[in-house]
């Protein structure tokens, strides 16, 4: 196991952060969300689409993003039962994750192995807090010097962050190309995919704002305002 980890680190050091775009038929990350939300960027906000998008985030274990979208539905239809139910579901999920986190923390504080810290980091990472996840693994490497598990976990999280940035970069370029070539529907899809991969980072909205300047079809400001709430999640984390 140790040997495999060391090999992985060596490969990582040798090849650095070399990512490659997947072949077009496999380049589908975030496509369901894009197909759900994308068309809406040229139309008024649609509660049904917002609900469907919230479900996608929920199914992907991204309760924070799901909650923001459920709340967006409630601003349009304050009594929307599906949104209210969704929020309850999200809160339960968040409560569960928080409990799990506290469990691992208690085990670690009771002298448990490094895996507890890595599990805490994994919970943070999958909820969209990569900085916190990295901090926990960095700390774990200090507390358990010589142990390769936190080092490998840290590498995995870092690679996850870098891969997301790589994908966001190439999707942004593709979106610019689509805008310049006068393909607004493609712009919408690529925006949706960026929204999914970046979990609503502000750079996604900046990219849309830029291409908006050169596309003929007007973007619906109300929709963008509602979706823009996703940025608040990152602003709170200081990771845009």
């Amino acid at each position, binding site marked *: 196991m140790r040997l495999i980890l060391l090999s992985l680190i060596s490969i990582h050091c040798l090849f650095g952060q070399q990512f490659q*775009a997947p072949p077009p038929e496999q380049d589908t990350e975030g496509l369901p969300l894009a197909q759900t939300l994308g068309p809406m960027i040229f139309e008024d906000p649609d509660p049904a689409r917002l609900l469907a998008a919230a479900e996608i985030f929920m199914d992907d274990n991204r309760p924070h993003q799901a909650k923001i979208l459920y709340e967006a539905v409630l601003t349009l239809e304050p009594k929307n039962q599906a949104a209210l139910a969704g929020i309850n579901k999200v809160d339960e999920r968040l409560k569960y994750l928080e409990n799990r986190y506290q469990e691992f923390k208690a085990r670690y504080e009771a002298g448990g192995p490094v895996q507890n810290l890595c599990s805490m980091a994994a919970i943070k990472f999958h909820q969209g807090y990569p900085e916190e996840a990295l901090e926990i693994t960095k700390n774990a490497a200090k507390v358990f010097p010589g142990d390769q598990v936190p080092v490998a976990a840290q590498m995995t999280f870092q690679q996850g962050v870098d891969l997301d940035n790589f994908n966001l970069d*190439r999707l942004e*370029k*593709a979106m*610019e*190309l689509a*805008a*310049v*070539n006068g393909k607004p529907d493609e712009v919408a899809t690529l925006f949706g995919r960026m929204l999914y991969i970046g979990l609503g980072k502000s750079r996604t909205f900046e990219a849309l*704002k*830029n*291409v*908006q*300047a*050169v596309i003929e079809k007007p973007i619906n400001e109300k929709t963008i305002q509602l979706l823009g709430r996703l940025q608040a999640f990152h602003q709170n984390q200081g990771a845009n």
Partner: protein
Amino acid sequence: MLVFLLCFAFQDPKFLQFKETRIDLGTIPIDRKAEGAFFYESLSDLPLDVYFMLSTCQCSLLESGQLYAERGGMTTLPPKDKGYMAFEMEPPPPGPFEHYLEIFIKSQGWEQKVRLNIVGTVISPIHIEPTRLHIDLAQEPLQLPQIKIYPEAGTPLQEVSVEMDPQWLTFDAAALGSYQVALNEAIYTNGGETLKGDIHVKYRLKGKMIEVPLPYEIAVPNPCPVNPPSALFGRVSQPIERIQKVELETGSLTVTGVAWAPEYLQVKFGKIDETRTVVYLHLKQKPPSVLAMGQGFNGNILLETNQPQRPIRIPFAGKIVAWDE
């Protein structure tokens, strides 16, 4: 191998030997032709054809007093000849110089090339301040310098003029030998560029017109900040790498059109908000200058603005690594 070595053994191209191939003329006055001579000796039993091939100065070459017709001219030296090749040189601009003449010697299929170096320092009876003109038009407040010409004692300043071509600057004579630099508004058509060249300071000395170059460098800013200052495509292999974005902090300036862009580049621009404009540069075709993969391309695009004669220049560059239509 033996044949190869024998070739070298018999190949002694030095059949014209010079006493020295470098002459230091020391200091020479700007108003007089400089002269000197390179002494030679022919080691050959055969006549030698000597061609005056090139020179980096305005020089005439004479062989034992006989003028070569012109650069490219030829003379034939008799076997075992001894003599000198004299030269006359129009003085270059003031300051140290290093020039050379190149001659080519042929005899019965053998060839020899000799470079004759001439060094020295030309002195002028006038001094110009500044010695180089640096102007950054982005500086606020903009202060344009004066050009001052100081003659040495006893040298009268006659028929002095300060000129430049193209006329980006004008020079108003404030007093004899003192010129205030002023801008020609047309200079702003070069926004985003640094203009370089020589201003020509001319004066008459002992009946002869002397021209002294004054180097200039003028940084002409774009009318608004361009971020990044150039569109760098980097290595282009995928279609998504064929697009680059540049943001302009246009403020109250409005981009009204594309004044110039190469045919292979599609340019689209639009206002992001009240103060910013985005410009996309899209390589819609492979640049014609790229004949093979791995070759670079570069150029500028020029955007028109609502301010007359204040276009925005955006340089671009990249390298085509792969191109699938």
